[in-house]
């Protein structure tokens, strides 16, 4: 049964040190506010899971929240590298980051298996690739009918999945639309689910076959307008491409990164304050 609360309480209730947690979003509807709240609550030793780790995972990794990352593509879309992610892998700063690396098709299949109550998934994957040499969670299995060899990978079942969606109704039913990515599967694969939404509405007015998470598969619904920034929320706001570019500069330098995180995240109480803090800086920059 979905409970409504603020993001701080939801994160504090479910996100504990050492758990496996997925904050999913495929370039659209990325749950940035939730990731930043986890940083604020100084969680440690998390096993982070995500197909496409980007800025918010760069922030979490750079602030030392993660001991392990399971992923298939890590970058700042349209910009380039993730510097905190790279530095963690290349130099072990701020701590050693173990990685488990798959392809997109595989990660999607793993979430599907988790959502489907299956222990593993099969795919036509990795033919000729070196990835299986470095990942014992990629194995091979023979078809009992044709004898073909296929890749097999274990189901993903995060302790907690957090996603951001456009809206929820008064009961906590959640509507996701536009690029829906892997969010439904990531939520259904998890033991607990937090959903941040742009808006809580009286009625979803959803098309009959829309992508809906019923209230009874969601633990907490938190209204966090703008909570996907700098990514976008179809129907609400566009992506902040300029911020994505700025992130390249902020994150390239350890000290600059840490100072920025301190100022805008650790020293703010919630996402609204974070946005205000960013705004204030922008105005300073513009007037300077």
């Amino acid at each position, binding site marked *: 049964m979905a409970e409504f609360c603020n993001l701080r309480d939801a994160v504090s209730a479910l996100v504990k040190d050492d758990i496996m947690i997925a904050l999913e979003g*495929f370039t659209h509807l990325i749950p940035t506010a939730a990731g930043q709240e986890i940083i604020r609550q100084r969680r440690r030793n998390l096993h982070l899971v995500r197909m496409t780790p980007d800025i918010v995972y760069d922030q979490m990794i750079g602030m030392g929240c993660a001991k392990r990352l399971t992923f298939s593509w890590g970058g700042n879309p349209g910009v380039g590298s993730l510097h905190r992610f790279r530095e963690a892998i290349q130099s072990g700063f701020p701590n050693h980051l173990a990685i488990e690396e798959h392809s997109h098709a595989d990660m999607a299949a793993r979430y599907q298996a988790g959502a489907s109550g299956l222990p593993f998934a099969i795919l036509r994957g990795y033919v000729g690739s070196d990835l299986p040499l470095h990942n014992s969670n990629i194995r091979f299995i023979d078809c009992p009918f044709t004898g073909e060899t296929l890749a097999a990978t274990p189901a993903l079942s995060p302790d907690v999945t957090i996603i951001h969606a456009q809206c929820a109704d008064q009961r906590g039913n959640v509507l996701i639309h536009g690029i829906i990515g892997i969010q439904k599967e990531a939520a259904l694969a998890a033991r607990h689910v937090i959903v941040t939404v742009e808006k809580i509405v009286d009625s979803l007015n959803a098309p009959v076959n829309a992508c809906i998470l019923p209230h009874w598969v969601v633990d907490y619904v938190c209204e966090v307008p703008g909570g996907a920034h700098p990514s976008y929320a179809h129907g609400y706001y566009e992506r902040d491409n300029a911020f994505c570019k700025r992130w390249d500069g902020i994150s390239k330098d350890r000290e600059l990164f840490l100072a920025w995180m301190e100022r805008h995240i650790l020293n703010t109480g919630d996402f609204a304050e974070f946005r205000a803090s960013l705004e204030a800086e922008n105005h300073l920059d513009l007037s300077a």
Partner: protein
Amino acid sequence: MSDQRYTASEMMTIVAARGVTNHTVCFVGIGIPSAAANLARLTHAPDVVLIYESGTIGAKPTVLPLSIGDGELAETADTVVSVPEIFRYWLQGGRVDVGFLGAAQVDKYGRLNTTIIGGSYEKPKVRLPGAGGAPEIATSAREVWLVLKHSKRTLVDQLSFVTSSGYLDRSDSRRARGRGRTTLVTDLCVMRSDPETNELVLSALHPHVTVEQVREHTGWKLRVSDELTISDPPTENELYVLRDLQERTLRAHDGEAVNE
């Protein structure tokens, strides 16, 4: 390159676009592959079907997307499906004619590295973004088109890591689907894979480029096709449409930058 009408990068994009046949289904990576596929759609291949791995099928963006999941793609698509569906029903289902990819490194078989450069997997000198959709695009698309800038650092003899291959070279017993023909388009030339050996063979030079120049910038001992040709230079229309698209794109994305 002596013809000042166009840049080498424009030539690369235009030649890649020419490879896109009307009515084919292309699974498109971001960057130059996406520029080439959309240029084709706006010129000779209006009915090409563009699929992006974010789940957008039949996208017809008016400006080039910065990311694989831009809202523009969803808004102009015939339909938007989930990420597991796009990989299972559409790519693995065998419905993609051409996979259009970039990479950090490619070897003479057109195998791709997007994982690390230098060092070991555990402690790389440079960590790259990783596999994304490429390992399965390489096996499931009927053909693979690669687009990247030509240099000894990108066209290498030995990949630091084989991220995506698709060739059934490990075991005879595995009867999984194998990789189709590969075409590599660079800012110097076009290479096509030999159907027998899978080796990339120089098949067409861009205008004013010599075989020697290509050899000089290629990390492996290059084979040259007996039927080597020279690609036509960009037409006025190709150049006009490409530049128009890129200007529209810059304007759209700069517009947002100004707001920040």
